[in-house]
Every structure is written in structure tokens, then in C-alpha cells.
């Protein structure tokens, strides 16, 4: 290619790079600053970044820091997530991380789906001539129940294992984290009952009150789901219980994808059949699809990665 002497190919390859460029800023092509490379590296899995991040930074700098180099780094982040190098695998850490993420996104997806299904059904939004919309509601109900059941049964041994350990080692904070999935819903439902009694009129709560209660519900779900995730991070469990939970999360996420698809079908059906009814307009319903799709994607991708790690760990065991 170029006919210049290669200063980057030394006898001692670890300690010599190219000569530093001294041209004025205006004489140089547009160069990416290191922070852009850091942003591109932030797109990579943490284990990949920890292993190769510094080297990539140096290579981009040595290559002149051109934007196309940074773009190539950013572009390769996706395959690094989809096919992470095997030698960087900490399968137990992968399962724990995936479980925590999948639990959080699953709770958000379940909340979004439940709010949509309850709200539209209670307000009598139907789509005459479109039976697939009512089927979609039924499919959603069944899929969500199966998904919760599978995740609950599969995660129960791990939860009990961590609970026993937290009690045995008197880890009060971890004990609190682990009890959040029980305490969160109880506190929320109790708060809901008290609010309904104090503030609810014959017509129920006001729209603003409903929005507040719905947001509080999402917050309760997020806190309840975050508890076990934090406990997983602190207690670092390993072994068959973790593998079972990760596998169950994978199955649960697959069923959750069915529930999310059902919600998407219902939203699409209502948009086609129920324009401008009960204060809804099609764009509002379509916008609802965005968080549903985002939560479903995160749930499925995280759970799939955890389940894959569980399968690999089982094969190695």
C-alpha cells in the first residue's frame, strides 16, 4: 500500500507504535477524539471491553483516530453481543446478569400489557368484525400466566437458596432485597385499597389519579424485580439452581414473546377498527407499541443469553 517504512512493526512489538503526527489541526483530516472511540467501545459487552478496550483505543489512536476507524469499532459491537468470544465467558456471571435484566424487563412488559388489556377491556373497546382482537386478549392472558408460572417455578429453588444463605450469614440487606418481590406487590395493593377508599368516588378515580396509580404500579414492579437482581449480584450464586432459573427464564421469555405479539395484534386491531373511540386515537395506541416492543426485545435477548449460558454450563458440568 504505502511505500513508507513501517514504524509499527518493530522487533519489540509491544513497545513501539507509529510516530506521533505533528501536522496542524487544519492540515489533518477530521479526526475522532478518543472520547468517540470510548463511546463506540461502550457499545460492547463489559467483558469484551475489559479485555480489548485499551488495545482498541491505542490502535485507533495509532491509526490516526479517523472516524471510519471509530465507525468500524462501533459497527462490530453487535456481533460481539450476539456471539461473544468463548474465552471471555463467565457463564455464572452471564446467567446472573441475564436473570436480573430479564426479570426487570419482564415485569415492565407484564405491567404494560396488563394496563393495556385492562384499560381497553374495561372501557369496552372491542373491534366488531375482528375476532382476532378478542383472541389476542385471551392469548395474552394465558401466555402471561404461563410465563409467570414457569419463571416462578424455575426461579423458586434459586430464590430459596439465596434466602437461606442470606439468613445463615445474617446478610440483612440481601434478605431485604430477596423479600422485595413479596413486599412490593403487598404494599402496592394495600396502598391501592387505601387510596381507592379515601380518594375514589362513585365514578372511580380521576384520569390523573389513575395515571398516578399506574405509574406507582410500574415503580412497585420495578423495585420488586430489582431486588432479586441486586441479591444475585451480591450473593453470586452458582450451580444447578442458577442453571435451572436461567433455563426457566429462557422458556418464560419465549412465552412472553407470544404475549407481546398478542398485545401488538390487539393494538393493531383496535387501531384499524376503533378510531377515535373513548378518547383514544390511533397514534396513541401505536406509540404504546414502542415500549412493548422494547421490553419484549430486552426480555427475550437477555433470557436467551442466560439460557444459552446455562446450556453451555450444563454441558461442561
Amino acid at each position, binding site marked *: *500500500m*504505502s511505500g513508507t517504512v*513501517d514504524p*509499527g*512493526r*518493530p*522487533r519489540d*512489538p*509491544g*513497545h*513501539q*507504535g*507509529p510516530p506521533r503526527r505533528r501536522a496542524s489541526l487544519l492540515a489533518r483530516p477530521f479526526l475522532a477524539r478518543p472520547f468517540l472511540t470510548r463511546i463506540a467501545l461502550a457499545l460492547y459487552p463489559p467483558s*469484551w471491553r475489559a*479485555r*480489548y478496550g*485499551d*488495545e*482498541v*483505543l*491505542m*490502535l*485507533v489512536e*495509532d*491509526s490516526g483516530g479517523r472516524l*471510519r*476507524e*471509530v*465507525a*468500524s*469499532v*462501533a*459497527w*462490530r459491537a453487535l*456481533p*460481539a453481543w450476539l456471539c461473544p*468470544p*468463548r*474465552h*471471555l465467558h463467565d457463564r455464572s456471571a452471564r446467567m446472573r446478569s441475564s436473570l436480573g435484566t430479564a426479570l426487570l424487563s419482564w415485569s415492565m412488559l407484564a405491567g404494560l400489557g396488563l394496563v393495556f388489556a385492562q384499560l381497553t377491556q374495561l372501557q369496552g373497546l372491542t373491534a366488531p368484525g375482528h375476532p382476532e382482537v378478542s383472541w389476542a386478549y385471551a392469548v395474552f392472558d394465558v401466555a402471561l400466566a404461563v410465563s409467570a408460572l414457569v419463571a416462578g417455578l424455575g426461579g423458586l429453588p434459586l430464590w430459596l437458596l439465596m434466602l437461606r444463605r442470606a439468613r445463615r450469614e445474617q446478610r440483612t440487606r440481601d434478605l431485604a432485597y430477596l423479600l422485595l418481590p413479596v413486599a412490593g406487590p403487598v404494599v402496592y395493593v394495600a396502598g391501592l385499597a387505601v387510596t381507592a377508599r379515601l380518594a375514589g368516588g362513585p365514578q372511580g378515580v380521576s384520569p390523573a389519579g389513575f395515571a398516578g396509580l399506574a405509574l406507582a404500579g410500574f415503580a412497585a414492579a420495578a423495585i420488586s424485580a430489582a431486588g432479586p437482581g441486586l441479591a444475585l449480584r451480591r450473593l453470586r450464586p452458582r450451580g444447578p439452581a442458577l442453571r435451572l432459573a436461567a433455563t426457566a427464564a429462557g422458556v418464560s421469555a419465549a412465552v412472553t414473546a407470544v404475549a407481546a405479539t398478542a398485545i401488538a395484534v390487539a393494538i393493531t386491531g383496535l387501531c384499524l377498527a376503533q378510531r377515535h373511540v373513548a378518547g383514544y386515537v390511533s397514534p396513541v395506541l401505536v406509540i404504546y407499541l414502542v415500549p412493548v416492543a422494547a421490553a419484549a426485545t430486552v426480555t427475550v435477548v437477555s433470557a436467551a443469553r442466560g439460557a444459552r449460558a446455562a446450556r453451555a454450563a450444563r454441558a461442561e458440568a
Partner: protein
Amino acid sequence: MTDRLDRWADPPLLVLASLADEPKHGYAITQDVAETMGVRISAGTLYAVIARLEARGLIEPLESDDRRRPYRITAAGAEVLAQESERMSKVASVARERLRIRLGWAGA
């Protein structure tokens, strides 16, 4: 068709070939591949390849105080490179011979 022709410039093979004589760090590999093989490897592609080759045990990192960590080819990597080189050599030989018969190509 173009994709198939690009297989000749398969980045893992280029990196293995570059490391065949001595250990090199990332920048040295890109420079060597560009100068000796005429192929430019971007930073993202190079480290995707390095990660894959390291995972398969075909190259290994060397200790370095610098952030420019050098890599060297392993015995398994050398074996893979030798096999691939042999295969490519056979294909090239057949291609040259047939071109010579068909076109009287002087380069054969």
C-alpha cells in the same frame, strides 16, 4: 460472486499470516497486512478477528507493560494456516494451469 472472491482476503487468515513470522501488536498487524498483502483491515474488524482467533486457541497474547499488547501464533494456529495455505496454493495452481491452456497466459 464478489463475496466469494472476497474469501481470498479472509481477515482471520490475513492475521494468522501476519503473525506467522513474529509476534505483533494490533497496529503492526494492520500495517503488515496492508503492505505485504494489500488489504486494509479496520480496527473493529481486527479486534473481532483477534477475539475469535484467541477464543479458538489459534493465537495468544503476550505479556506487555504497554497497552499495545502483542500476539503470537500458536502451534494450532500455524497448523490451520499451513492447511489453508496449502488449499489456496492448490486452487491457485489449478487456476494458473487452466488459464495458461485457455488464454496462453504468460503468468502461469
